[in-house]
């Protein structure tokens, strides 16, 4: 009754339609356009979907891989979302994740003689700290000197990339080896794989790169949710993001909150280093971020910067990444780059064109409300 009247009188969508239906429509449209690209290539989109789904969920190893990718996307999606809540667009997740990995690598290379329970907290702190540090400079420049954070974080991605090349080529390279990689970490430093952990409880699961950092990602979803919506610090951060003048009025420092939110954002992105470096690669190497930082943007936009949405979006992209890897086996003309296309489409439709279908949706709701009122 009340929703019907708000649709009619105020031209507003019901809340559930605004936060769930509209984004869902946008994602579906993005996937449909992705399907068109498949048609353009000359394949059957339905077949592609079938292979994709099977590749993502069809067997235990696939599920493991899907969740392993999901882990990365939760980290980077949360990173973008926290900055969004403070009104900042952090495009620098890629660079912050890169540096987070560096932090993990440095700590483990220095301490991998120590027991795991010493290494793990150190590595976690290093991942967060290095990611946060890389976000700090753009944050400080934005807060104190008004330098546009979008541009500075883009620049910092490139700087991170050249820095890592320099460090790996000149410093960490294993002597007598051509490829710029560090030595492998001692095995006791590795994050336990989930299949190993399940094994401790007598559950057998096919091996996959999915590791303990997945649990940390899930915990972070809850922690971020509590922080943003249920603490005074989150309240202040959102106030700055929504209305900086009101923040000043209320005695909330925009400078402080811009910096805090970017530090958190950078730390969240940095945790990607735990999954990739400590969980899977077990050595420091180049390009392990592989664009995951940018996927975070799609994930945050699609998930409307809410942890539940981010979890779902990260799962979707995890499935696309893993299922996409299977595509090239079945369709020689399709590679996982199709997923990149879909990622671009999701950002376009769920982000830049997020209200494209709102007028139509509103018209439908209006008609329904009128019919109900009439009948």
């Amino acid at each position: 009754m009340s929703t019907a009247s708000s649709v009619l009188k105020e031209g507003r969508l019901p809340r559930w339609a605004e936060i769930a239906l509209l984004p869902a429509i946008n994602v579906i449209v993005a996937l449909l356009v992705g399907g068109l690209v498949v048609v353009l290539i000359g394949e059957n989109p339905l077949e592609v979907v079938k292979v994709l789904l099977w590749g993502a969920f069809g067997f235990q190893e696939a599920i493991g891989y899907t969740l392993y990718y999901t882990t990365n996307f939760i980290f980077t999606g949360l990173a973008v979302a926290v900055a969004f809540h403070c009104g900042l667009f952090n495009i620098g997740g890629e660079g912050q994740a890169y540096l987070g990995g560096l932090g993990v690598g440095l700590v483990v290379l220095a301490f991998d003689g120590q027991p795991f329970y010493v290494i793990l907290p150190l590595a976690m702190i290093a991942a967060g700290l290095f990611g946060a540090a890389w976000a700090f400079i753009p944050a400080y420049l934005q807060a104190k000197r008004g330098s546009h954070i979008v541009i500075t974080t883009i620049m910092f991605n490139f700087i991170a990339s050249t820095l890592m090349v320099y460090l790996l080529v000149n410093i960490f390279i294993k002597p007598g080896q051509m490829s710029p990689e560090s030595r492998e970490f001692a095995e006791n430093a590795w994050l336990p794989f989930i299949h190993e952990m399940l094994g401790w409880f007598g559950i057998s699961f096919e091996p996959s790169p999915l590791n303990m950092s997945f649990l940390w990602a899930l915990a972070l979803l809850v922690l971020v949710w509590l922080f943003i919506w249920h603490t005074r610090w989150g309240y202040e951060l959102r106030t700055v993001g929504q209305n900086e003048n009101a923040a000043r009025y209320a005695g909330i420092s925009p400078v402080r909150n811009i910096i805090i939110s970017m530090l958190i954002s950078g730390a969240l992105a940095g945790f990607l280093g735990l999954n990739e470096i400590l969980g899977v690669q077990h050595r420091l190497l180049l390009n392990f971020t592989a664009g995951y930082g940018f996927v975070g943007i799609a994930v945050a936009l699609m998930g409307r910067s809410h942890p539940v949405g981010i979890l779902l979006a990260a799962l979707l992209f995890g499935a696309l990444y893993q299922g996409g890897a299977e595509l090239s086996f079945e369709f020689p003309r399709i590679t996982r780059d199709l997923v990149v296309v879909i990622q671009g489409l999701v950002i376009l439709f769920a982000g830049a064109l997020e209200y494209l279908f709102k007028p139509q949706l509103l018209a439908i709701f209006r008609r329904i409300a009128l019919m109900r009122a009439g009948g």
Partner: protein
Amino acid sequence: MTGQNIPGGSTAGDAPCAAQPAQGHDFAIELRDINKHFGPVHANKDVCLRVRKGSVHGIIGENGAGKSTLMSILYGYYQASSGTIFINGRETKIRDPQAAIAAGIGMVFQHFKLVDTFTVLENIVLGAEGGFLLAEGVRAARAALQRLEREYELQVDIDAVVGDLSVGLLQRVEILKALYRGADILVLDEPTGVLTPQEADHLFRILAALKAQGKTIVFITHKLREIMAITDYVSVMRHGEMVAHRVTAETSPEELAELMVGRKVLLRVDKTPAHPAATVLETDNLAMTDANGVQRLKGVSFSVRAGEIVGIAGVAGNGQSELLEVLAGMQPPSGGRFVFNGHAYDAAHPADARGIRAQGLGHVPEDRNRLGLVSSFSAAEAAILGRQDDPLFNGLILMDERRIRENCLHLMEKYDVRPVDPALPAANFSGGNQQKIVLAREIERDPDLLLVGQPTRGVDIGAIEFIHRRIIEMRDAGKAVLLVSVELDEIMSLSDRILVMFDGIIVGEVDPAEADEKLLGLMMAGVDPRRDGPSREGAQA
């Protein structure tokens, strides 16, 4: 009544204006049954208006009555939902400003539409460049403008960069812009809101010159004095409807005020004499320079005692906003000091908004949407803005959602906020209810000093009385109130003492008993007639 002869068309409740025969007069503008919806808001309802050629036609109404919307429709800036427009007797479709310009309509908006980085000349030729290359059109414009400047007392340096000009000059640029495009009909939306009375007088002389040249002028304002001073005819709008048309010479301010508001206005709020006690706030030569290096406060000294309301009158933009921001800890002063509840603050030790609140300050900001609320927040969240770290609403780490909700419900009941829904986003409440939320939040903290800026801006009549009562109750409870308003009525009816601000200083103090609009108006222009000549030096001494 002289209804049959008054240009303006029918009023609400009459037959639709289209049904009325034209009365043989020459009308520059005729609007018939204009309707405009903004989403759910019906901003113009069946509005009809006739403006006689060569006349100055005033449109008066409260803030939000729909005057600006109507004129924006005439100018093609907005599209009417329905209705027809006749210009010089011919039906004209005005789909965009270009069509309006072609029809000979020029508009001076309340907020100027100028490019700061351009010169006056570039601003004027924008959209009327006269050809693909600039050079030629600019040369022609230079000559034409010099002629216009002479003709209408519109002197302005056409090579100056607009960003460096004063508000009065910017307005001249806007008028020149319209005239350069060959406007025969000039619409001015609240043109005096930011002007001193002297600048306003100059404007009126320009308008008289334009009228003498046969131009038609539509003058939108909410100030009765201006309507009486310069218009030939006046139309009154209320709640989006045209409610009356009058010949200015045959009406009175009292009648117009009543038509505007819809019932007898209570000019004075009932209140008992004040019983001022100890001084709560004292400022001493307070100065403030803004980020652009402009000195906004030039040495302000006054005091506010417990149990009194001190009103600050002044034309908007003379330092009142900055004074509130400095006192509320949002801006540091650049000189002088102030003492609040025994704590001294100066440039080296400025107040911070959080700290001074804790000392017992409440602040209802001038612009609630810009400062006082976060429109996407729920009412419950909005109702703790500035108190978010109050232990009352916080556990060790998490906030106490139940308490926050109860606090909001309590405020809503006490201040009659509708709808009573703490989960509803602040943006979904009406202006009056939003203001009540802000007021409730600030008053119910029981501050020793309440800073109130423009408490009734954009608020409906019913809520105005309610808000005024709360402010007086606050005083009667022995609290200090500093009220800033550009509405002289509000200042005069609420204040126990009136201070007048002009150009960053306090020009003088007036006892409300002896205050009238004329005296205050002069003082707001920097002249205190009770002393001889300008009193700036006097006030600073």
